[in-house]
């Protein structure tokens, strides 16, 4: 976010509170049971710092089941739990609209130079980075070491199609390389292969073992390495490819996955610095592979899995799984053979086209501030300023559906129950967490309703009940029955 002279925490609070006032009363976050310090590894690194739990900052829960709050010093939108990658995309884009509305309300009372500006990006160009985290539900019986072995190659190589692009560099190693353009916003900030931390010594695979669900049945893979995408298709393929590969892991085990890069952190960074996609890295078997080679192998793995009848865990709709595979393939072939053909889908290609075109038109040095301004403004959420909106990116969501998703939760997960309760009983829902809701009925003790399975609490399971219960009292009585 930006706002010259403004304090980031104050500005973030203004954004969250602006939206909360426009909609519902503030609902606090229920921190009971939050344990971001738990490590998924049997032998954890005891020197790592557990992430801070910030209990005092602005927070609210939206009727679409999302959480909107101040995290560290930025406003954060955590989308509701979704059943499919396409729903994940829908509620990601709805989050942009939430932020846009919050910004508009906040700026009705703030004037230049204090107006708040929001950017959906992952670094400020000065060495500060902040993530766009993905979370995937994984079966608990998959050993965590297998998750690491299966996912590292994907997480270091997928940036060639889902990287958001960056002008210049911010960290010592990347600066020393003389990079003028990187595929990913996040890559240069990663220093470890596996670890618990998220703000320093960032790991390619984060070990936070906090499923926000029944710990005996579920893991939540907390992916912190991704870029925030402006391209809808990139978000879809980012979520879809990762979900498909996790499904392959659950059903076929880790042995079908390609050998890891021998040095994953180096591979991640080297791949990021090479828009020509030629750089190779040795794998553990002594083969050398480009990022594209990895993605090609992983796509084939996913494609064969779907051809054998897999994929329903990612979406019950075969057309959606097909779309993910098709787009993933087209992006891979396009980015290698004819990048211009995928400038309508791949953010780093679209952004580079603007930057390179502008540089050539005015014969600018690669370090010119105007090129950095273009790169920043690509992510500007204001429609009158956004360059992503002007870059010719394909939209696959219906704008009406997006507007609905700002208010209505997905029907297919427990987010439905959360969002509907916030909408129907705004005065009674006093606190929430991903796996519970806390009601204050105005009499007796606070009542916590647990939701330990993210796949339940759906419209199919709860809508009739909610419609019958006009008050939270009635709902709680029915739940007790």
């Amino acid at each position, binding site marked *: 976010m930006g706002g010259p002279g403004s304090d980031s925490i104050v500005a973030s609070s203004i954004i969250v509170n602006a939206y909360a006032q426009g909609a519902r009363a503030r609902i606090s976050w229920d921190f009971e049971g939050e344990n971001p310090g738990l490590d998924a590894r049997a032998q954890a690194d005891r020197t790592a710092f557990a992430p801070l739990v910030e209990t005092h900052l602005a927070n609210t829960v939206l009727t679409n089941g999302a959480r909107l709050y101040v995290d560290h010093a930025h406003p954060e939108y955590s989308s509701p739990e979704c059943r499919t990658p396409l*729903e994940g995309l829908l509620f990601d884009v709805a989050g942009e609209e939430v932020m846009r509305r919050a910004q508009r309300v906040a700026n009705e009372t703030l004037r230049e130079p204090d107006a708040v500006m929001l950017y959906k990006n992952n670094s400020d160009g000065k060495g500060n980075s902040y993530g766009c985290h993905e979370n995937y539900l994984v079966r608990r019986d998959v050993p965590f070491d297998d998750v690491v072995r299966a996912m590292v190659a994907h997480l270091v190589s997928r940036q060639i199609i889902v990287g958001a692009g960056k002008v210049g560099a911010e960290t010592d190693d990347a600066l020393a390389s003389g990079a003028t353009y990187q595929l990913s916003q996040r890559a240069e900030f990663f220093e470890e292969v596996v670890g618990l931390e998220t703000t320093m010594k960032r790991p390619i695979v984060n070990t936070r073992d906090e499923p926000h669900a029944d710990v005996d049945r579920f893991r939540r893979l907390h992916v912190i390495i991704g870029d925030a995408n402006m391209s809808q298709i990139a978000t879809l393929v980012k979520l879809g490819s990762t979900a498909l590969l996790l499904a392959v892991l659950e059903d076929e085990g880790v042995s079908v996955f390609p050998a890891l890069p021998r040095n994953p952190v180096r591979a991640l960074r080297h791949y990021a610095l090479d828009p020509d996609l030629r750089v190779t890295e040795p794998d553990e078997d002594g083969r050398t592979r480009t990022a594209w080679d990895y993605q090609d192998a992983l796509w084939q793995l996913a494609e064969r899995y779907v051809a054998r009848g897999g994929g329903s865990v990612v979406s019950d709709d075969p057309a959606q799984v097909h779309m993910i595979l098709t787009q993933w393939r087209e992006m891979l072939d396009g980015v290698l053979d004819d990048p211009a053909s995928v400038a309508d889908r791949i953010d780093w290609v679209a952004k580079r086209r603007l930057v390179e075109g502008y540089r050539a038109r005015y014969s600018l040095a690669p370090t010119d501030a105007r090129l950095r301004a273009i790169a920043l403004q690509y992510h500007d959420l204001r429609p009158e300023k956004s360059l992503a909106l002007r*870059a010719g990116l394909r939209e696959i969501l219906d704008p009406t559906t997006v507007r609905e998703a700002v208010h209505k939760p*997905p029907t297919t997960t427990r987010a439905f129950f959360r969002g509907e309760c916030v909408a129907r009983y705004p005065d009674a829902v006093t606190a929430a967490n991903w796996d519970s809701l806390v009601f204050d009925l105005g009499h007796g003790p606070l009542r916590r309703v647990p939701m330990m399975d993210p796949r339940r609490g759906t419209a199919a399971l709860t809508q009739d009940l909610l419609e019958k219960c006009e008050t939270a009292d009635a709902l709680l009585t029915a739940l*007790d029955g």
Partner: protein
Amino acid sequence: MAEQERIKRQRTERTSTPATGEVTVDSSKGEQLKADLDELLDEIDEVLEENAEEFVHNFVQKGGQ
């Protein structure tokens, strides 16, 4: 307290994929993009923040995961 799910009647799960109607994308747009670059650069000139140096300098976002 009973888990809220326990008392629900089971019935066929309704699946909702709000945008699957939109799965088709045409592939001609890539070509068109090439021709549009000049127009796009004109548009950038119109909306790009005037003082790029100051704009970029002022964007600081500390404290993130």
